[in-house]
């Protein structure tokens, strides 16, 4: 516990040290916002396991003083061209960051359709500060958790994505973060703002790739507004390296008849934690918060979801599936809150984990909090091992044991992948599953398209 108490101060010192150099330092509203953030953080501090949302997750024992913000040079490291994720990704619209620094040379905005703005936070603070102010500054600082408050104080990167009323973009748009290639441990606090105006549609793919071996600490906050009748598909792919700490807080507001679909796929990372809070604010609002994670070694993956059903006729669906090998740990904490007037809410929540080793561990805590009387909600959590009967069934058909095990893992994960409505993304994620599995397994073609 001593470690956790002492963990707060280095972050505060860091803020004092860099605040004058942070982007937008000439904007008085931003200065006030940052100040409110650091004050909140100083009060709350780094979360401990006494914090409910951190009950099963401890911040790894790192020396926070060693981590520092990236500078321009850190972003100029030579990296291989961005690996294509989507199969026909020619002319893929994307922003690419290396060690948290925007890389225009690797990014591509040439095909950006009309009605969309897509730019780094640093740039948007110059081009459209009023918009950022309108999104960030509410009467009171909304962040009630240590790391999101710290992000408010320290935000130095991130992406602003806006889709104008009625504009519908079919092709996925990418945000790529490449990390782990610095000469010293780096900490970053990206702050993203995605706003889809009424009737618009877009698909965003966020990739976090650990492409080197240096330690990094990513403390992201993403603010999302899905306007009335708008549809946002938001997919996150974490292929972080062993030395990565990846914390992400996502706050979403979903309007009338609007849909927010998110899928978080994680392989790797010393600690990978995503907390998604969704407010279903308009009648007919729908969200699907699902994900899959595959962890080995001593990796730790934590998914937290909180959905507020605030008005009648809203629906939420969650399907999380995790595969844990070696001493890996998985955590799922999900809460559906059905408020007093939210009649006819339909909520479904499922967490399933497959343990491949006796030393792997899963903690799941699904919760329903219901204050309305006409609702349909279900939740479930299971943790199990490879089904010996199924394994024998496959082997009795001639399938070798190692392959049979992989096929059963693929079978297990498939149920989560079905939640991804974008076919290209689903296939690409299936490819990452195949890549994660050792040796023989179904190829993507055999598995997904048959």
């Amino acid at each position: 516990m001593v470690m956790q108490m002492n963990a707060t101060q280095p972050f505060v010192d860091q803020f004092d040290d860099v605040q004058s150099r942070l982007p937008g330092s000439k904007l008085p509203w931003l200065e006030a916002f940052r100040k409110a953030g650091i004050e909140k953080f100083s009060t709350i501090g780094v979360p401990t396991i006494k914090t409910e949302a951190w009950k099963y997750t401890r911040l790894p024992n790192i020396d926070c003083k060693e981590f520092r913000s990236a500078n321009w040079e850190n972003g100029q490291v030579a990296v291989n061209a961005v690996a294509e994720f989507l199969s026909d990704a020619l002319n893929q619209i994307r922003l690419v960051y290396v060690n948290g620094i925007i890389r225009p040379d690797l990014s591509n905005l040439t095909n950006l359709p009309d009605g969309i703005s897509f730019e780094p936070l640093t740039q948007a603070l110059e081009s459209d500060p009023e918009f950022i102010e309108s999104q960030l500054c509410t009467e009171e600082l909304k962040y009630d958790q240590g790391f999101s408050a710290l992000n408010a104080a320290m935000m130095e990167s991130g992406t602003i994505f806006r889709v104008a009323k009625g504009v519908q973009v079919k092709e996925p748009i990418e945000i790529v973060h490449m990390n782990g290639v610095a000469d010293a441990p780096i900490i970053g606090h990206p702050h993203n703002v995605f706003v889809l105006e009424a009737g618009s549609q877009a698909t965003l793919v966020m990739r976090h790739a650990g492409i080197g071996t240096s330690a990094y600490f990513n403390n992201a906050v993403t603010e999302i507004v899905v306007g009335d009748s708008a549809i946002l598909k938001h997919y996150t792919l974490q292929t972080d390296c062993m030395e990565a700490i990846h914390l992400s807080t996502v706050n979403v507001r979903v309007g009338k008849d609007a849909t927010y679909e998110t899928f978080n796929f994680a392989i790797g990372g010393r600690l990978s934690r995503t907390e998604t809070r969704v407010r279903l604010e308009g009648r007919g609002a729908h969200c699907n918060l699902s994900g899959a994670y595959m962890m080995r070694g001593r990796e730790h993956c934590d998914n937290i979801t909180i959905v507020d059903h605030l008005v009648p006729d809203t629906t939420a669906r969650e399907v999380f599936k995790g595969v844990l090998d070696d001493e890996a740990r998985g955590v799922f904490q999900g809460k559906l809150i059905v408020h007093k007037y939210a009649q006819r809410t339909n909520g479904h929540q499922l967490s399933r984990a497959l343990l491949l080793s006796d030393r792997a561990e899963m903690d799941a805590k699904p919760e329903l909090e219901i204050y309305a009387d006409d609702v349909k909600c279900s939740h479930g959590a299971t943790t199990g091992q490879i089904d010996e009967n199924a394994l024998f069934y496959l082997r009795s058909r001639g399938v070798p044991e190692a392959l049979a095990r992989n096929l059963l893992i693929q079978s297990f994960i498939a149920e989560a992948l079905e939640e991804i409505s974008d076919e290209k993304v689903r296939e690409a994620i299936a490819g990452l599953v195949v890549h994660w599995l050792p040796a023989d397994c179904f190829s993507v073609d055999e598995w997904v398209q048959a």
Partner: protein
Amino acid sequence: MLEIKNLHATVGGKEILKGINLTVNAGEVHAIMGPNGSGKSTLSYVISGKDGYEVTEGQILYNGIDLTEMEPEIRAAEGVFLAFQYPVEIPGVPNVTFLKEAVNAVRRHRGEDELDAMQFVKMIKAKTEELGIAKDMLKRAVNVGFSGGEKKRNEILQMAVLNPKLAVLDETDSGLDIDALKIVSDGVNQLRSDERAILVITHYQRLLDHIVPDFVHVLAHGKIQRSGGKELAFELEEKGYAEYGVAAE
């Protein structure tokens, strides 16, 4: 083809099979009948190699080779097939993909070239038509949402594509209505041949009206108590297993 000699086997430390002797030649169909708890399913699992079923004494010779130390997948590749009493559901894996994987795993073992997608589809199409199996069963996930009859038909389809030399049918009639029973039995009868031996394990005589055996054996208390021709099945149907020291259920 199959020669079981003084076979003793335990499950969880408890002896279930207590000295089985049985010889099955190519081209023959043998029925093993017995009451619940007699060791019928244990025998089928021991032949096919399920974990947890330990052979403590005796041998299972298959074309002269002892199977007892062999992995189940090797047995399958060598031509041993078990049709399950309760086929397992595998969500998220299309039946056709599973069948292709199984066929090619067996072909690899036998040193034959794997079938590519085209060759496989051609082969599987022919087999489904022969057996009167609906094509949509191939696209669906393995056994997921299948009716009892569909599951058993899927077992027979697997048997047809894997082309085993020794097929063991474990309680294939359980959970089938009379129409499904007929379809499944017709499938098995199509697969009878001079090169293949079939071992039908069942509690009831009714399956043997459709798959007529050459020999019938009565299994009780972990041992073959009596052997005879197909008329033995009728006798059992009439008298039950009482004379083998088993109370009526």
